[in-house]
């Protein structure tokens, strides 16, 4: 009651900065929309009503549906097994179940393909992507299981329901938002996935757009496909947004102080231990083995320390610049959203949120064209690539910085003001020190995400600039598996901190994961 923002005027420079960030975030969507309009309905029809589009749509949708279902089943089963049973070594299993997140999907694809060339097509893509992404369901389900009040289950139990029936009628319905949210996240990642699917030779819209780009640069066909892809993504994003609204009501109480009584597995213990072991072996063991093998092969032939160092340096410089720019861009957006609620703030924040639906391929394509049409000077500069990173990872920075600013309630500003501080001194002595940790965390997350970004980097990195991801990509797509291995290893190493951070985060969200 005392901290309403009513009566505070929104400073114009802040609004302008926020609007500018929102505008940047909307460039890709605006590009796709305006280009599609420019193509005109007749030509658009010709570009879309052709067998290739039907084939890509079939591939994309069937793979998404299959992977979302499979990750949902696998994620829930593993979460229940680890969280709610007396499986030996549950803590260790939890770490292992999340570990696949540290292997970017395209590195996982490389690991499988280089080990066994028969892993390709729908089956290969389905298998590899499912193994890469099931933690996106597993993590939120685990978090939800930990939050559920065991009293509910105990009530059902005491009312005469068996444990199995209690699970089905009491626990499962409560897991629904977590499962759906996780599966939708898998869907969004899958729609954006380029590297893994390209290596596994399963064409989807994303890989097809890249092929078109490589052949026709900025042709209408690529944009028409991008339009379809963005629509698919927006459908998932809207579903996620709606679910998020529901979820707020679904969450009751502040969670359980005591855990649920673990289900004794009895004789099932050993077979289920085997299942968990098999999942880990496939999801972590195989990539680790493959990578290790190629590392030995690669290092025995040559170990290009210079090139490795140069790629690492370029990656670090780009990721640093991207992290700083993205985090700074998030500040006005968050400030408006938290401190100056209103129509303008909402529009600005939503604009940055839309980037969650934009695959790297679309952002890359959009910035290539937008820069060439509007400001050719920036084309082929690192600045443009950094702008792409900012668009892609702004949602992640916004969420993190927002959490920080919410920890700095406006009443502290009031207090500081009453103690004689002007607005600038208040920002310096109160607000900034308070949000500094979240700025740091946001920047770190963005840094890690950029380090393993492949698609937009491939399209936008200035000629001559090589990052870990592009060097890995050029080696692995030329089948120089040994040469790709050191880059793959570095990519995994930079993904580990992000994975640990995600493991600690409780709630699922649409922020992008590594790759």
């Amino acid at each position, binding site marked *: 009651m005392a901290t309403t923002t009513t009566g505070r005027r929104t400073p114009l420079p802040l609004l302008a900065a926020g609007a*500018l960030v929102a*505008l*940047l975030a909307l*460039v890709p969507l*605006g*590009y796709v929309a*305006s280009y599609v309009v420019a193509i005109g309905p007749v030509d658009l029809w010709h570009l879309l009503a*052709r*067998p*290739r589009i039907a*084939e890509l749509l079939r591939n994309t949708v069937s793979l998404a549906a299959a992977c979302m279902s499979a990750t949902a089943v696998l994620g829930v089963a593993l979460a229940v097994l680890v969280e709610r049973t007396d499986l030996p070594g549950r803590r260790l299993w939890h770490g292992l179940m999340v570990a696949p997140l540290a292997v970017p999907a395209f590195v996982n694809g490389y690991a499988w393909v280089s080990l066994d*060339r028969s892993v390709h097509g729908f089956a290969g893509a389905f298998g590899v992507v499912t193994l890469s992404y099931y933690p996106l369901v597993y993590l939120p389900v685990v978090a939800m299981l930990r939050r559920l009040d065991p009293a509910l289950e105990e009530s059902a139990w005491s009312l005469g329901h068996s444990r199995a029936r209690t699970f089905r009628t009491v626990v499962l319905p409560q897991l629904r938002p977590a499962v759906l949210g996780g599966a939708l996240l898998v869907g969004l990642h899958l729609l954006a996935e380029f590297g893994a699917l*390209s*290596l596994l*030779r399963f*064409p989807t819209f994303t890989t*097809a757009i890249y*092929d*078109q780009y*490589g*052949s*026709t*640069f*900025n*042709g209408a*066909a690529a944009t028409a496909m991008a339009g379809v892809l963005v629509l698919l993504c927006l459908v998932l994003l809207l579903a996620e947004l709606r679910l998020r609204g529901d979820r707020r009501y679904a969450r009751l109480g502040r969670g359980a102080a005591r855990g649920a009584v673990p289900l004794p597995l009895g004789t099932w213990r050993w077979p289920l231990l085997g299942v968990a072991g098999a999942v880990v072996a496939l999801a972590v063991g195989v990539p680790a083995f493959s990578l290790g093998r190629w590392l030995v092969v690669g290092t025995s032939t040559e170990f290009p320390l210079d090139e490795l160092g140069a790629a690492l340096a*370029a990656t670090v*410089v*780009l990721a640093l*610049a*991207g992290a700083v*720019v993205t985090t700074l861009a998030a500040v006005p957006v968050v400030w408006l959203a938290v401190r100056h609620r209103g129509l303008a703030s909402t529009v600005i924040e939503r604009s940055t949120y839309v980037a969650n639906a934009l695959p790297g391929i679309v952002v890359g394509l959009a910035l290539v064209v*937008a*820069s*060439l049409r*509007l*400001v*050719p*000077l*920036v*084309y*082929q*500069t*690192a*600045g*443009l*690539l*950094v*702008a792409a990173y*900012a668009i892609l990872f702004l949602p992640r920075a916004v969420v993190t910085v927002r959490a920080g600013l919410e920890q700095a309630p406006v009443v502290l500003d009031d207090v500081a003001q009453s103690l004689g501080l002007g607005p600038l001194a208040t920002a310096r002595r109160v607000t900034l020190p308070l949000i500094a940790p979240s700025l740091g965390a946001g920047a770190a997350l963005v840094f890690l995400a950029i380090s393993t970004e492949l698609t937009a980097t491939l399209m936008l990195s*200035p*000629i*001559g*600039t090589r990052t870990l991801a592009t060097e890995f990509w050029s080696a692995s*797509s*030329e*089948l120089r598996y040994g040469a790709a291995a050191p880059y793959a290893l570095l990519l995994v190493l930079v993904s580990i901190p992000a994975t640990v951070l995600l493991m600690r985060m409780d709630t699922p969200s649409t922020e992008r994961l590594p790759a």
Partner: protein
Amino acid sequence: MTTSPRRAAARVSVTLAAALLSASALSGCGVFGSPDLVIYNAQHEQLLDELVPLFEEESGLEVELRSGKDLEMANQIVEEGQDSPADVFLTENSPAMSIVDNAGLFAELPETATATIPEQYVPSDRSWTGFLARSTVAMYNTDSMTEADMPASILDFADPEWKGRVSFSPTGADFQAIVSAVLALEGEDATLAWLEGLKDNGVIVQNNLVVMQSVNSGEVDAGIAYSYYWYRDRAENGNDSDSSDLYFFGNQDPGAFLSVSGAGILASSEHAAAAEEFITWLTGTEAQQAMAESYALEYPLNPDANLNPEVKPFDELEPPQVDVASLNGPQVTDLMTAAGLL
């Protein structure tokens, strides 16, 4: 000029982003000195990494090499227009040269620069010159096939009997150069029909290395690629070529098409003399012989250079007569899009 508000807004946002990020641009792309010659290279980077030091040593000039891919670099040069820092453009295949040529960005080469190259590999206006050639071939798996099982023409791969048995990489500039030759030789309808047949029959992979691998492993019986991939693998260790062999269509078949790697000087070049010196050197006997002896195993176009005798001799290839300057990239990608390959 009227500007729509949306466009103006987009302009502002991108400009701002650019201004905001110019600092990082400096660190990101590396601060270059002022070289004597800037080469945009879309030929294999490894090859130019071997060649350029030889030229630098001989000429005393400092060369900056920026490597990329055919279409990407061609389009970038077009976009950069008069401001392009490029002095020389090298490609793997000639359609990319045509893109720059059609934009009128090449300067006419001096006669000395093309003197050693047979005239059919130089456009009549000397806007650029070929300096290497690569021969189209079919590879076949020697466990499941014999040479006799191979078709007479590359066009036959569109026949139903090849369903699921032939691999190719439609997204690469190599294959698209082959298609441009088919288009030049057979016309639009036949080319579209051929592409549609290939789409039905073919196993699509991401590049020619995977074509070779898929043939050698027996995943498919045959594949369409250039010859040098196979020769290089044989020269290296044969891991991906030991169970396969090359099949040359010859006989002026489109499948015997020789694709030409081009070299040209940008009209906007501020180092025209150095650029001319480089191209003259590139087509001269010393550089051509160096390329012939390199790992590349592509065909040098200077007849005085002698290639590894393991490689099928240049004069036995019987390629079709195609005007290198006429190969049309955009029409090829349109046809491939229509056939559902893109």
